[in-house]
């Protein structure tokens, strides 16, 4: 099996599994308990918090653990609005993940005014548009660090500074960025930042939210005192330990050119072998592991099924919208031509991807595309 769908989810690193296993076996205590069996588990949580903080360049006390990226995004958006309850304006972008867009749509029904910033054909933001949208009534600017479908990076630093000039809170959905590109929250003008473990070789079911020190945070889940009252619920100890280890490992791999070299080899190789193909998204401002390619005149699902037949996993659109039949909202926002819109495939690599796997895609995909084009009524026009 050739797994090139790492933006959907990643394999748990064996070292991560090794780190978490004791907490699925002998160290099952509840960290809130009044015995040293539970107490020693509490120490493991502290260590994990330090590991995650180290990757992000923040303080351990600024990290709270969640169950996934979606919870992080939902929580951050609510917390930001609760911190400035008198303001009624939100700025986001048209290409956000559903776990940001859907809460925003929901808030529109509750009387919030939401600006969805557009992107250009390369998926990039226009800072002038952002500046024009910002007002003293803007409670929140929420945008992603890196796009899950195209890998395009947004200029968090500039956006954050501008937003802060207007007194808005800045939330960054960094689910796709964390572990793939360096982030330094000591430097970045960001108040809240979301990450999700299963995108960086930790298991599914664990995530984290960065909350800048001093931020008047209001929790989404209320109940017990866990996470200093910022997230109720018995802590997912094995998941937290795993995320800590995954963060530590990610840091050691940051800057390793391996993924980008293979991604470039794949991208260039396919562009050379398959005519009428284009890269979707800015060529430079992009995650090192992602390429989104538009194969004109063919349909994405058909390509995926063929790839699947060869044991190759890739994706069209984002994993959690691919159950629907609509073309990707991200590519539509980029105003890609219809010929490309329906035939775009995302390959997303990881540190476990091997050169031979890329080779194999280069071998089989040209045949698949030409087969599908042969039966397409459009390619002959």
């Amino acid at each position: 099996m050739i797994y090139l769908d790492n933006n959907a989810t990643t394999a748990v690193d064996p070292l991560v599994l090794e780190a978490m296993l004791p907490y699925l076996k002998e160290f099952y205590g509840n960290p809130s308990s009044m015995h040293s069996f539970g107490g020693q588990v509490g120490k493991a949580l502290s260590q994990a918090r330090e590991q995650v903080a180290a990757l992000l360049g923040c303080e351990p006390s600024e990290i709270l653990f969640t169950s996934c990226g979606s919870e992080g995004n939902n929580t951050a958006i609510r917390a930001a609005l609760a911190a400035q309850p008198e303001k009624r304006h939100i700025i986001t972008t048209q290409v956000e993940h559903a776990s940001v867009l859907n809460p925003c749509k929901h808030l529109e029904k509750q009387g919030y005014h939401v600006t969805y910033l557009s992107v250009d054909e390369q998926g990039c933001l226009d800072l002038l548009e952002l500046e024009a949208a910002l007002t003293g009534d803007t409670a929140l600017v929420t945008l992603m660090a890196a796009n899950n479908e195209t890998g395009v990076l947004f200029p968090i630093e500039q956006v954050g500074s501008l937003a802060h000039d207007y007194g808005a809170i800045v939330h960054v959905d960094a689910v796709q960025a964390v572990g793939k590109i360096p982030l330094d929250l000591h430097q970045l003008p960001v108040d809240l930042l979301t990450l999700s473990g299963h995108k960086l070789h930790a298991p599914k079911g664990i995530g984290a939210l960065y909350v800048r020190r001093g931020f008047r945070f209001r929790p989404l889940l209320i109940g017990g005192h866990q996470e200093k009252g910022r997230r109720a619920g018995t802590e997912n100890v094995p998941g937290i330990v795993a995320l800590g280890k995954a963060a530590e490992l990610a840091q050691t791999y940051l800057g390793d050119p391996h993924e980008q070299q293979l991604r470039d080899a794949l991208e260039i190789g396919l562009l050379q072998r398959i005519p009428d193909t284009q890269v979707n998204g800015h060529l430079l401002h992009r995650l090192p592991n992602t390429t989104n390619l538009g194969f004109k005149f063919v349909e994405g699902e058909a390509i995926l099924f063929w790839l699947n037949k060869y044991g190759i996993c890739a994706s069209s659109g984002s994993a959690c919208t691919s159950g629907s039949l609509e073309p990707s909202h991200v590519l539509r926002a980029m105003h890609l031509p219809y010929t490309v819109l329906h035939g775009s495939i995302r390959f997303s690599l990881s540190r476990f991807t091997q050169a031979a796997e890329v080779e194999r895609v280069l071998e089989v995909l040209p045949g698949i595309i030409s087969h599908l084009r042969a039966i397409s009524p459009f390619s002959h026009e």
Partner: protein
Amino acid sequence: MWDYSEKVLDLFYHPKNQGPMDPTPEPGIRVVTGDVGSITCGDALRLYLKVEEATERILAASFQTFGCTSAIASSSALTELITGLTLDQALKITNRDIADYLGGLPPAKMHCSVMGQEALEAAIYRYRGIPLPVHTDDDSALICSCFGISESKIRRLVR
């Protein structure tokens, strides 16, 4: 789980000077007690002092405590700290001294050492026949987060 120092745990598991003091009169020596807290608020301390009347020196001290790990360790620490001191010297002992002697207490548990200071004060004032100063509600709120205003009133009634 509270992160207690070795010293706290040691004095908790092996308290020194525990138990009531023999009240049989001895010439030139007086035994007094000082009480703080009540069973209502979950912690209480009875401190016994054996004082040499001529010198006002504390010859021995012992305690009985109803309370948590740090309350028991604090009580025991107090008895060690004050043995051999004169009453005037002992009055200078603060809950900080008790906590320091214990190698520190978790912030949420600092109030457990305050009980020691209060009991000591109570015993000495009783020895000297001085009425106990009334702690204002503000004070008690500072002292222990489990003594709400209404509870500190209950506490005085019970006392």
